């Protein structure tokens, strides 16, 4: 109570300081006058009386100082005055302030942006009511469970509620005369009530509804023109009408996390859907309790509805949280932590360089101000006061740098949030600056202040007043050495960053120019999604695909057309089977890439056939397969497999009709994988059909015709056609992301290090003005002066580079995982590029100081002495 009043009093004083001082003066004058009146009455003259009264009173300055003390937060006022002083100093020396703030802005901006991205990606906080009591459920080790299991478990009432979602499905949306395939998440109709997902407007899907839809904000904005009257509007999806009941807010985060962002939510339509299960636990139920309840229910379920093949739901049951790191399984934790640590480490290096720059700037300032500080010391300033004063400067720098860095972060994350990653699944990061970010950046700022400010501050006061006053600026060798070490260290760190950046850049170039084993320059890829309900009869789909292929092949400019189950480097099917062949080898478990392709696939894709032939339309009856080289070598050794038979598990015999060259299936950087092809026709195919078309000329011009041709065949299908060369986004994503991220960090590091180098060289020249002047006066040639300046700079650069290369050689080793084959982490090309770039930068950084050194006028320089 009393304490609060005291604090309040002091704050009111802070606000009205001027008035307080005036009143105190008035009060003390009144006192003196009263005393003078008294003395006057006892017979003194007015003048003498006043003088005597004043004498008696003592020093009014001291009294008012003491009185003011009673009111002040001394440290706060001193801090404010220090900050004011620092701000004035910055205005006087804008180059210093600008460089310092720029360094910190870049360092902190990069850090917080990376922090935002990483937390946005990894530590999802799903948009829902009370996410802490939501839990993800997996039974039998499967991510998805059939609708029947969901019904059983829900009716068992194990938890407050249970909902199911199938995040990855698609629907064709008829918009005017266009069909567009949209990413939908189908949910059980209780999903919205259970999770309490907040909506921008409207409501969620209500229990029991079948034909309502909730739109994502992005879809509403981009495709429906932010129509304010969208509620109640009907959308034609897969040939059925759905009523829009709600729109999600812009920052909606799905329960899946990792930036997954579907276009719409619709109720589950079919009973054969597979669902991921989420439950709402009662407040006091732990995950372990929930798990044991679920275990009991699954035992019951296994007994009543046994699944085939000895598989039991009770085999593996997990209940896990949906927020933050909990959302990942335990087996995922290590790689996630490792990735997080790596990103933070790299970003930390950048901040380190930035701090070193600021420290070096502050150090230079402190040493050039040593006279001023010495004078202040000798006038009686406390050392702690001077240290605080110097720290205030770095605090101000850090505050401004953090603020600017946060702005960069906000702008950067807003930009990223608008951008949907070029992936076959809808990933869009919702990155918002949040409280952890704020705390993180404040911590960064504090660390920066301490790191960049303490050392120079202590250095500045250590020398002592008299020593510094006498010695002027001659003996600052130690400070100089410290700065040189800082710059050397900075160069070493930026060599590491640059080396990784260049390595990934080189990797990207290699990956882009790497031959995927099939032709991308003259192939087109048309993906056609059919409405499942219209193609319940498999034959109907096959007929459609066949007539589509005929029409496509008859188009002018089309050399050939084919259909495939999956398009290499975009999606793939991996299978593992016990393979046996008729050349007498033991059966062995083999993992291989699997695809179903129609006749003409290898011709269209430009994959050479080494032995045998392609599939033919007549192949429907037998079980012909085509192998790639890797599979052939694995299963048949040196024998030519064409004409031989093989078995996969206990299935029918497969007749090998051809062997084709290896190509890339998952990533461009992969080693050769065994692959097996079966004919496209003759097995149930999903409603996503991929047509691949080989054009005679440039494929881009054909895209429209192809689109129109396919649309004519089925008006309800969603068709999208693009050149194959543009569809390698997924395959190139790791190299692109790596190159973009580490490349830009490397460049950032380089910029910061060159600022540091430039600063220290310029400072060195300014400090040596006298020496240089003397040398010129004694007859030094311009070449000698330049050698003097450059010698100093190149020495530092050489030492830093050597140390950096050694470090980089060690630091890049773990990166081998991310590189295309044939590219070593200790890539000589990248390392040479680093040395070249650093050399060039240091010459440029030294040029301005060198020119300044040449302009030194010996007369002016000598007049100092």
């Amino acid at each position, binding site marked *: 109570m009393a304490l609060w009043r005291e604090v309040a009093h*002091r704050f009111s004083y802070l606000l009205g300081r001027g008035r307080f001082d005036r*009143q*105190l003066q*008035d009060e003390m004058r*009144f*006192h003196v006058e009263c*005393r003078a009146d008294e003395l006057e009455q006892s017979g003194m003259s007015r003048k003498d009386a006043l003088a*005597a009264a004043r004498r008696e009173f003592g020093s009014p300055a001291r*009294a008012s100082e003491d009185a003011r003390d009673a009111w002040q937060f001394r440290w706060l006022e001193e801090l404010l005055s220090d900050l004011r002083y620092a701000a004035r100093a910055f205005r006087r020396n804008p180059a210093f302030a600008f460089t310092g703030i720029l360094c910190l802005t870049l360092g902190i901006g990069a850090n917080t942006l990376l922090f935002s991205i990483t937390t946005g990606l990894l530590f999802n906080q799903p948009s829902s009511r009370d996410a802490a009591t939501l839990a993800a459920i997996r039974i039998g080790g499967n991510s998805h469970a059939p609708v029947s299991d969901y019904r059983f478990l829900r009716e068992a009432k194990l938890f407050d509620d249970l909902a199911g979602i199938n995040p990855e499905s698609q629907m064709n949306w008829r918009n005017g005369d266009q069909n567009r395939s949209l990413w939908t998440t189908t949910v059980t109709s209780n999903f919205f009530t259970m999770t309490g997902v907040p909506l921008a407007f409207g409501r969620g899907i209500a229990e029991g509804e079948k034909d309502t839809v909730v739109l994502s904000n992005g879809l509403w904005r981009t495709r429906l023109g932010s129509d304010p009257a969208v509620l109640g509007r009907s959308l034609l999806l897969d040939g059925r009408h759905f009523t829009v009941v709600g729109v999600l807010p812009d920052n909606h985060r799905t329960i899946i996390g990792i930036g997954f962002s579907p276009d719409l939510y619709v109720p589950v339509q079919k009973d054969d859907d597979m669902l991921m299960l989420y439950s709402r636990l009662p407040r006091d139920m732990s995950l372990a309790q929930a798990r044991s309840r679920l275990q009991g229910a699954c035992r019951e379920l296994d007994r009543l509805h046994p699944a085939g093949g000895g598989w039991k739901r009770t085999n593996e049951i997990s209940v896990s949280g949906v927020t933050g790191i909990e959302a990942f399984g335990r087996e995922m934790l290590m790689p996630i932590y490792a990735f997080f640590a790596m990103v933070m480490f790299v970003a930390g290096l950048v901040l380190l360089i930035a701090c070193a720059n600021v420290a070096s700037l502050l150090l230079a300032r402190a040493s050039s101000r040593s006279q001023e500080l010495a004078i202040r010391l000798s006038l009686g300033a406390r050392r702690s006061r001077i240290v605080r004063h110097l720290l205030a400067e770095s605090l101000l720098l850090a505050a401004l740098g953090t603020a600017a860095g946060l702005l960069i972060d906000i702008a950067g994350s807003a930009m990223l949030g608008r951008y949907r990653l070029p992936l076959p699944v809808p990933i869009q990061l919702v990155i918002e600056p949040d409280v952890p970010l704020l705390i993180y950046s404040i911590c960064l700022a504090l660390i920066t202040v301490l790191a960049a400010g303490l050392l120079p501050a202590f250095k500045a006061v250590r020398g002592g007043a008299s020593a510094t006053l006498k010695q002027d600026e001659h003996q600052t060798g130690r400070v100089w050495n410290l700065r040189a070490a800082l710059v050397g260290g900075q160069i070493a760190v930026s060599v590491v960053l640059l080396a990784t950046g260049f390595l990934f850049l080189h990797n990207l170039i290699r990956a882009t120019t790497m031959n995927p084993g099939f032709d991308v320059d003259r192939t087109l890829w048309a993906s056609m999604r059919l409405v499942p309900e219209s193609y319940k009869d498999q034959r109907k789909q096959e007929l459609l695909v066949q007539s589509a292929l005929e029409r496509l092949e008859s188009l002018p400019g089309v050399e050939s057309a084919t259909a495939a189950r999956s398009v290499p480097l975009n999606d793939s099917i991996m299978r593992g089977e016990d393979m046996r062949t008729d050349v007498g080898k033991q059966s062995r478990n083999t993992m291989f890439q699997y695809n179903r392709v129609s006749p003409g696939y290898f011709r269209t894709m430009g994959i050479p056939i080494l032995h045998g032939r392609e599939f033919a339309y007549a192949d429907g009856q037998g079980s012909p397969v085509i192998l790639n080289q890797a599979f052939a070598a694995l299963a048949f050794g040196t024998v030519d497999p064409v004409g031989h038979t093989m078995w996969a598990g206990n299935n029918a015999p497969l007749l090998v009709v051809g062997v084709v060259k290896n190509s890339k299936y998952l990533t461009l950087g992969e080693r050769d994988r065994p692959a097996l092809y079966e004919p496209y026709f003759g097995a149930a195919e999903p409603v996503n059909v991929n047509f691949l078309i080989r054009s005679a000329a440039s494929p881009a011009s054909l895209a429209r015709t192809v689109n129109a041709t396919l649309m004519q065949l089925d008006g309800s299908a969603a068709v999208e056609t693009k050149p194959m060369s543009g569809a390698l986004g997924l395959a190139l994503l790791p190299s692109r992301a790596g190159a973009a991220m580490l490349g830009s960090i490397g460049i950032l590091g380089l910029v910061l290090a060159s600022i540091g180098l430039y600063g220290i060289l310029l400072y060195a020249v300014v400090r040596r003005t006298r020496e240089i002047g003397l040398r010129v006066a004694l007859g030094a040639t311009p070449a000698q002066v330049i050698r003097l300046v450059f010698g100093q700079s190149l020495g530092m650069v050489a030492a830093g580079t050597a140390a950096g290369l050694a470090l980089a050689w060690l630091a890049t080793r773990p990166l081998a995982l991310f590189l295309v084959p044939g590219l070593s982490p200790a890539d000589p090309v990248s390392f040479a590029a680093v040395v070249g770039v650093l050399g060039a930068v240091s010459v440029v950084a030294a040029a301005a100081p060198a020119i300044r050194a040449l302009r030194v006028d010996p007369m002016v320089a000598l007049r100092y002495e």
Partner: protein
Amino acid sequence: MTQPETPQLLPGTLYMLILRTLRGGPLHGYAIARRIKDTSAEVLAVEEGSLYPALNRMVVKGWLKAEWGTSENNRKARFYRLTAEGRRQLAEEAGEFNRLVDAIRLVMKTA
């Protein structure tokens, strides 16, 4: 002009003296000093240099309230008034002080 030797105020007693003096009603700084001197038969003199800082500290602590008014000689002066908090403080300090003085007196008598 020679000042008679005045004994130093016992440490910590200045607040108490000011509070006691103000119990009779609001006074300005000069009057407080005057009153202490008069009532102590000129033995105790409050130094001006410490009077005003002390007054300010007491205002900050909330024992006193300061208001501007007009003095007996028609000048603008700052009057200090005891608050409820100040009265409580006075009672406390006076009690403490009396116990201390009694104890000292006892020791001086017997020892």
